């Protein structure tokens, strides 16, 4: 019957306590002592007894957990003797498992007193749960334990997002030029590398073959090596080795410095972009897709780095290599050099001819890429809706369109590029064969040059291939990176629409009086959302704002906390225009509890104390209590230290809302804005939150937006906004009595639906 059989030793020990193997009905291992040490043990249940076996383990024991792999070390499974406690089942009752943060405790009532029967880690939680459930059933009929499981789902959104200008290039370059030291090192290594590249063919061709192997007396004599051929050879060999070594060393330094320089400069660029983004007003985020911004900054900065690190320096290196190589070639033998150059115009012609086609195709691909990632982004972020409406097949269908366009564009580019590459290589191959043929004729027939010179020449021509190829594709990289840089600068240069006044007025201990005069505002010019709003809100007053969806309620409160600036008219707090107030003072004194609360990555305590770093623990607990949040926080295993937000523990909508209320309570603002503060919670939670809010609004000027009109029954005054204007104003009672009024209509509607709900 028992799933996990007991060891012989354990069975023997039980036998000593008069419990036979066949008596045992239920068994589960246990692994903790009540004083918090690992032990080995079992809990065994017979028809009339409960026995607990426990064995202390020596320090050398290796404790194995589920799915772990036993090592090679010898493990004595049972190094000691079991201690046994036996309880008569009839003396016990109320078995219960309590799960704590690091342990589980099985307790029961034994002779009228609660005792700890056994303790265990999560390793055996499942088995114990089963055992206890069966035991309870056995004890009295049909009581079942309930286990809870929490599933966490994660959503990810992916998104990606082209003109070129010299100024962008220069500006990006500045980010790199800041690090002059690193750049100097980099240039130095390029020079070393470049000169070694040029020295190598000369050393292996002309010097080795024509001078040393030919035993050129003039040449050797210059170095005092006349006649010492062996030594000269050795020196040339060493020189060759040294050149290779220098190349390797400078390469190593180059890569190291480049990695450092690129990451630092790109970090600066990213920081500037993020810094700028955080200063921008809300409307920027409304106009651009926020999700895409993030990936845009990251992927664009990558592309910029690619060019500035892999591309730009190489332009100089390869450019210089080409020029110097040609000069040397001409000095060695101008006829041969001319032959090597003869096909160059063809290369230039090809480049000029074929490039534009590639540009056009690249643009096509870019647009196709955008369409594909846009579509993918849509589908991933809207996965819930897509699935809920059973639109998977249709979405796949819709996706395949842009997807095959992208495929076609890629194929076209590959085709053209291949054509280009083949032609290019062909020209290069032809010119090197050309050199060989001409060279052999020069060496054998006309004796114009020596063998070494020919080898040197071929070496140079081959060496030119790399740089030439490089120039063939570097321009693409250049345009890519300029496009990316431009987009980054677009963010960096975006001017925050909400700017602090030159000499902002400080707002110390405000009274909290708000006055709106002739306020007109619209997100787009010529389409006002709010028209000519005039209202005075007295100190400590609670104003309820009512209206249909889209009437402009949220817009109105956003204007007060200056998330947007008014188009016409003015908003004054304590008689000072909000445009003249210091932004930090304003934000500190106006707190918003809104329908979408944002939880930052961090602990619960840090989230509550957001914007209020000096808050003590006692303050945080007090605020949490007032927000009816203390209870659920205490229940979290890690209490106030629980990490929440992205990748942390998931909180429910109501829990998040209560944390944001606690945040507002702690901030202790003079003006409080409640924007559908209880929208996403159930009725019971709403009651708890209402309770907290009732406290919160005391002594503060409050603006409350609510769909559920019952939430506004405590408001001193109500306004009804319709079509961007205040159409009704007064106490709840006054508004209720306006025949045909909007408030009355809304109220009647809600009462009716409530009555309907009550009937069901």
């Amino acid at each position, binding site marked *: 019957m028992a799933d996990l059989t007991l060891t012989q030793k354990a069975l023997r020990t039980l036998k000593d306590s008069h419990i036979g193997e066949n008596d045992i009905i239920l068994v589960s291992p246990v692994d903790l002592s009540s004083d918090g040490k690992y032990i080995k043990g079992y809990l065994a249940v017979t028809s009339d007894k409960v026995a607990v076996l426990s064995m202390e383990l020596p320090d050398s*024991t290796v404790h194995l957990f589920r799915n772990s792999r036993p090592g090679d070390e010898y493990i004595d499974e049972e190094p000691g003797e079991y201690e046994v406690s036996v309880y008569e089942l009839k003396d016990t009752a109320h078995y219960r498992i309590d799960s704590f943060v*690091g342990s589980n405790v099985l307790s029961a009532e034994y002779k009228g007193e609660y005792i700890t029967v056994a303790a265990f880690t999560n390793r055996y939680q499942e088995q114990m749960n089963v055992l206890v459930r069966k035991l309870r059933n056995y004890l009295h009929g049909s009581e079942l334990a309930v286990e809870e499981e929490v599933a966490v789902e994660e959503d990810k959104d992916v998104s990606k997002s082209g003109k070129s200008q010299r100024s962008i290039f220069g500006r990006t370059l500045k980010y790199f030029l800041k690090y002059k030291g690193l750049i100097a090192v980099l240039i130095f290594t390029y020079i070393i590398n470049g000169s070694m590249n040029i020295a190598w063919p000369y050393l292996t061709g002309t010097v080795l073959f024509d001078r040393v192997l030919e035993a050129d007396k003039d040449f050797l004599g210059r170095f005092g090596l006349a006649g010492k051929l062996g030594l000269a050879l050795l020196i040339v060999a060493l020189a060759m080795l040294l050149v290779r070594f220098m190349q390797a060393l400078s390469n190593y330094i180059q890569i190291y410095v480049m990695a450092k320089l690129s990451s630092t400069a790109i970090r600066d660029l990213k920081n500037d972009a993020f810094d700028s983004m955080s200063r921008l007003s809300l409307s920027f985020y409304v106009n651009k897709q926020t999700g895409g911004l993030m990936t845009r900054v990251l992927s664009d900065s990558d592309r910029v780095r690619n060019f500035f690190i892999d591309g730009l320096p190489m332009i100089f290196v390869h450019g210089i290599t080409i020029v110097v190589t040609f000069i040397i070639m001409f000095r060695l033998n101008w006829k041969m050099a001319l032959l090597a150059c003869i096909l160059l115009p063809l290369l230039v012609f090809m480049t000029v001819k074929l490039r534009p086609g590639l540009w056009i195709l690249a643009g096509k691909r870019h647009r196709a890429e955008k369409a594909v990632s846009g579509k993918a982004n849509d589908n991933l972020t809207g996965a819930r809706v897509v699935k809920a409406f059973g639109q998977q097949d249709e979405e796949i269908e819709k996706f395949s369109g842009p997807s095959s366009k992208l495929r076609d564009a890629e194929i076209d580019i590959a085709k053209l590029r291949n054509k280009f590459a083949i032609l290019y290589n062909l020209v290069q191959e032809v010119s090197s064969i050309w050199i060989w043929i001409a060279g052999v004729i020069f060496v054998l027939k006309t004796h114009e040059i020596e063998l070494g010179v020919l080898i040197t020449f071929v070496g140079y021509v081959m060496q030119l291939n790399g740089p030439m190829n490089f120039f063939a594709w570097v321009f693409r990289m250049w345009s890519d990176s300029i496009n990316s840089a431009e987009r980054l600068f677009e963010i960096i240069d975006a001017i925050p629409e909400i700017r602090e006044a030159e000499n902002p007025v400080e707002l110390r201990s405000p009274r909290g009086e708000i006055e709106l005069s002739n306020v007109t505002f619209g997100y787009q010019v010529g389409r006002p959302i709010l028209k000519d709003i005039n209202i005075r809100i007295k100190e400590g007053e609670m104003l309820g704002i009512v209206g249909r969806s889209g009437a402009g309620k949220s817009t109105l409160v956003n204007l007060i906390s200056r998330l947007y600036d008014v188009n016409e008219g003015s908003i004054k707090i304590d008689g000072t225009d909000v445009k003249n107030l210091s932004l930090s003072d304003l934000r500190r004194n106006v707190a918003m509890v809104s329908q979408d609360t944002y939880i930052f990555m961090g602990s619960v305590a840090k989230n509550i104390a957001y914007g209020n770093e000096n808050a003590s623990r006692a303050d945080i607990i007090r605020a949490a209590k007032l927000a009816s949040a203390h209870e659920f926080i205490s229940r979290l295993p890690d209490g106030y230290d629980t990490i929440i937000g992205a990748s942390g523990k998931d909180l429910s909508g109501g829990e998040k809302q209560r944390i944001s209320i606690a945040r507002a309570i702690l901030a202790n603002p003079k003006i409080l804005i409640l924007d559908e503060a209880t929208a996403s919670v159930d009725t019971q939670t709403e009651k708890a939150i209402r309770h907290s809010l009732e406290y919160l609004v005391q002594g503060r000027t409050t603006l409350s937006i609510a769909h559920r009109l019952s939430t506004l029954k405590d408001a001193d005054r109500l306004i009804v906004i319709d079509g961007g204007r205040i159409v009704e104003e007064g106490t709840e009672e006054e508004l209720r009595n306006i025949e045909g009024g909007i408030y009355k209509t809304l109220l009647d509607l809600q009462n009716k639906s409530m009555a309907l709900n009550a009937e069901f």
Partner: protein
Amino acid sequence: MAEDTLNIYEKKAEEMTATNMITKEYRFSKTKGGFLSLEFEGSTYPRIRVVRLFPFSDENKYLSIREYGNGDKEIGIIEDLSLMSEDTQKLISEQLKLYYFTPVINKILSIKDEYGYAYFHVKTDKGECRFAINMGANAVTKLSDTRLIIKDVDENRFEIKDIDELTSKERRMLDLFL
């Protein structure tokens, strides 16, 4: 009139936030069954629970003392355990030791990762342990730059107090999770 309503709300708020501070005067005792009982403001609580409100940032401050059952209602808060009588400190620490049982890893012998699981072999203050974690789940929580909580497949917790105190070899093994 307005003053009155303000008072009413103040009162309500006080009730809601009413935090009973449990200080030295109140007596905790151990029951025969090994549980804690508390006499507080004339009531006797035969069995109580102790919850750390800041288990990581300050484990011995702000301990919430709760009833057992009855919705686990909070009886009060011990602001600082070190200010309690020695007996109480001993009793509560004993309970917390079991409730927050978390072996502290002081040496990493090996970490192998395969098919989405990582197999740890470590030395802890409670003895040598081998356990497995699921790499896909949030098995490793960074409490700070240097402090980690690692949860095995059964959510058993292991703690690394300070990764800077590990050898560079051990840190390299951990790199996968940092």
